[in-house]
């Protein structure tokens, strides 16, 4: 590990695990150094996005597969966690029923089969990993086996997330229709709005981001990562050298989907809502631009890009809401035309 990288990782750890908790929990509100819950949540949210960006960078930057359906895996992880959080509400909902409010509203008498086991946290964790993972494995296996690649792959992943969005918009699907899940009260018995819970979620997210980053660094410099790069740069040659490229692609695609699912699961309790609009094709394509802005094919770039674009988004949507789309569109165009290697590429060239 190079020394600037060591510095960055260490600095991040100190800020996330020491500075932020101290400024948020120890400093009394009103104190000039106090960090409000808003900023903690925003930072937690952006870190979730950074994990998603890392996940996409693994498949796009290192294996050359541009998925435009990663928002789906993110949302599935979110829904897995959301189901558990809905069950944790218990009888404190509007209708004071054991069932989640939207089911009472739809006049359902019992939980549908999809909700089996949703009261157990461990089952939720299992769903968060397995549902995106299995979906990505099956989808990826068939797609890569029939050598669907490039833009074709991008378009069908987009169609996949679009189909899923339509499915989740239906009330009959059993996940709250277009309102999704919200009004969460507790996680593992702790109130989700309590500052300590928020801080714990923040720290877990930071820890997970850090470990994903370190794991990805190890992965891309391993032999597996080198084969991925070979597939990206010249897939036929990699095949002719005797590598079964399908296995490599399926593996990295599945891993990436699982990472997205975990990011989604961390995102939902912090933001307090999950609905099908997370699956909209526009959301998934935005993930690609985070990676492109930072510099695809560099892990730090993905994190940087997620931070920059989402930071800009938070700023713009408050300061000049009507200009955000102009800015985002301009970022898309400028990055592809002038910064093919992203911000990090420019920095490294200097």
């Amino acid at each position, binding site marked *: 590990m190079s020394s600037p990288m060591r510095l960055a990782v260490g600095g991040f750890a100190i800020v996330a695990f020491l500075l932020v908790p101290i400024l948020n929990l120890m400093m009394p509100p009103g104190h000039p150094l106090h960090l409000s819950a808003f900023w903690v949540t925003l930072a937690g949210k952006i870190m979730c996005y950074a994990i998603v960006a890392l996940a996409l960078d693994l498949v796009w930057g290192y294996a050359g597969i*541009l998925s435009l359906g990663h928002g789906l895996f993110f949302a599935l992880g979110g829904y897995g966690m959301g189901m558990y959080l809905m069950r944790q509400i218990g009888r404190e909902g509007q209708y004071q029923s054991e069932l989640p409010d939207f089911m009472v509203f739809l006049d359902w008498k019992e939980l549908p089969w999809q909700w089996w086991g949703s009261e157990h946290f461990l089952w939720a964790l299992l769903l968060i990993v397995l549902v995106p993972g299995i979906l990505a494995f099956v*989808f990826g296996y*068939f*797609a890569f*086996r*029939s*050598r*669907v690649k*490039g*833009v*074709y792959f*991008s*378009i*069908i992943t*987009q*169609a*996949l997330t*679009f*189909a899923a969005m*339509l*499915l989740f*918009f*239906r009330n009959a699907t059993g996940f709250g229709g277009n309102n999704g899940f919200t009004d969460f009260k507790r996680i593992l018995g702790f109130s989700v709005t309590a500052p300590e819970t928020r801080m714990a979620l923040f720290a877990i997210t930071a820890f997970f981001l850090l470990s994903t980053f370190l794991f990805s660094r190890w992965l891309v410099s391993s032999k597996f990562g080198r084969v991925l790069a070979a597939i990206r740069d010249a897939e*036929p040659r990699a095949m002719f050298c005797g590598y079964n490229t399908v296995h490599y692609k399926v593996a990295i695609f599945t891993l990436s989907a699982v990472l997205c699912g975990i990011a989604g699961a961390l995102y939902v309790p912090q933001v307090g809502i999950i609905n099908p609009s997370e699956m909209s*094709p*526009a959301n998934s*394509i935005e993930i*690609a*631009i985070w990676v*492109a802005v930072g510099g695809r094919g560099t892990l730090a770039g993905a994190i940087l890009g997620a931070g920059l674009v989402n930071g800009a988004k938070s700023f713009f949507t408050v300061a000049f809401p*009507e*200009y955000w*789309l*102009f800015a*985002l*569109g*301009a*970022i*898309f*165009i400028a*990055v*592809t*035309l002038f910064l*093919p290697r992203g911000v990090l590429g420019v920095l490294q060239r200097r």
Partner: protein
Amino acid sequence: MTKAALAAFFISTSALALDRAAVQKLASDDNDEKIAAIAALVASGDPQAAEVLRQAAEGEVELDGKKVEIVVNNRVRGRIAEALSVLKLLSSEKSERLAAAKALAGGADSAMLPLILKAKEKETDAEIKALLEITAAGMQLKSEDKAVRLAAIRMLGSSNHKSLLLEAAADPDEDIRLEAQKSLGAVEARLVWGEWLGLAFAGASLGSILLLAALGLAITYGLMGVINMAHGELIMIGAYTTYVVQGWFRNTSYFDFYLLAAIPAAFLVAALVGMALERSVIRWLYGRPLETLLATWGISLVLIQAVRTVFGAQNVQVENPSFMSGGIQVLSNVVLPWNRVFILAFAVAVLIGMWALLSKTRLGLYIRGVTQNRSMAACVGVPTARVDTWAFGLGSGIAGLAGCALSQIGNVGPDLGQGYIVDSFLVVVFGGVGQLAGTVYAALVLGFANKLLESWSGAVLAKIALLVFIIIFIQRRPQGLFALKGRAVEA
């Protein structure tokens, strides 16, 4: 005015000429008696009965020169309304008779039956007569006399009223039940053709819309290989151009002809925007499809926001020219809306125009040459860069035409294009890239399949099923329906 005054005068002096007993009964306390009185008044067929009933509905009638208050509840009021309709059946105005017949189509009190039958006998207009026949049969269905009921059921067998027959088919009397089932079978056999025809038309109509949305893409993506995610926004620009042109014609007497100006305008505006995009952005990204995808997505965001800033975030209203509203009645239960028929024809026209342009003109020759072998085309002197711009302009212009057509059937808003982008890419990919014929077949197949599925699973599930089908299909045949044969490792 004078007529009304005259009528009022007439009634005040000669209400007595009416069945006095009946008018008196109207003022009774018993609702059943009131209803009997209404029936008696109607049966008399007296022209003044209508005026008395109208007064009764308002709560007062004149009797012997003094006002008598009448308490009217909803039931009585309903009967009075029916009675007035029945009386109107005898009117000499055809439009009034038709309106009355339609008002009575839901059935009426059995006491009105004799008069309805009388009106039916006297009726000369075929449409009104048919309406009355069904109404009468529907009422006779509830009659006490079994023979009358059976006759009514046979009568309904030649109409399209399933609901009445369904009721009769569950009758406790076996004869009635059998007869009703027989009639029901006849009705259903007749309706089934209409249902299939309606479904086929809906499929063709959706197919034509998909085709219009995808044709432009078949050029820019299919032939040129440019992933243009802003294609949907070019459609939207075409729709907004139509809206603006419509605004210019709004207060002139030529409003019905605004489409004649809007069609070329939509083509030109969208083509110009497309050419500007090609020159400024897309040109630099040839051969890098994923980057093109992201950049054109950025363009689409900018275009959406630009339209939102100029025209507002709300949908704008584009009115159909008068000749496009309404529809043609093909069968008793099939109406083909004119705007859908026009769009179908328009899609065919655009398709033929595009085919002619690509295969009969020099520009078409250049476009085909450049897409087949760019360097060879350049060697023989084709200005490839300019051809790229023209071809992209053509594809964008056709998107604009699609927008013009869509403005006639749906909402026009900044998000219009977003709804079509996934669909149109799927049509092109499904049909096979580089294939105009493939695009046409794919659009029609998807249109029909969507409507067919919709008819038994609902719109959303049909859409999901279709998306999943295409995803699976592409995995089986990545080259699409009509593949160009080749032996390259990389397609």
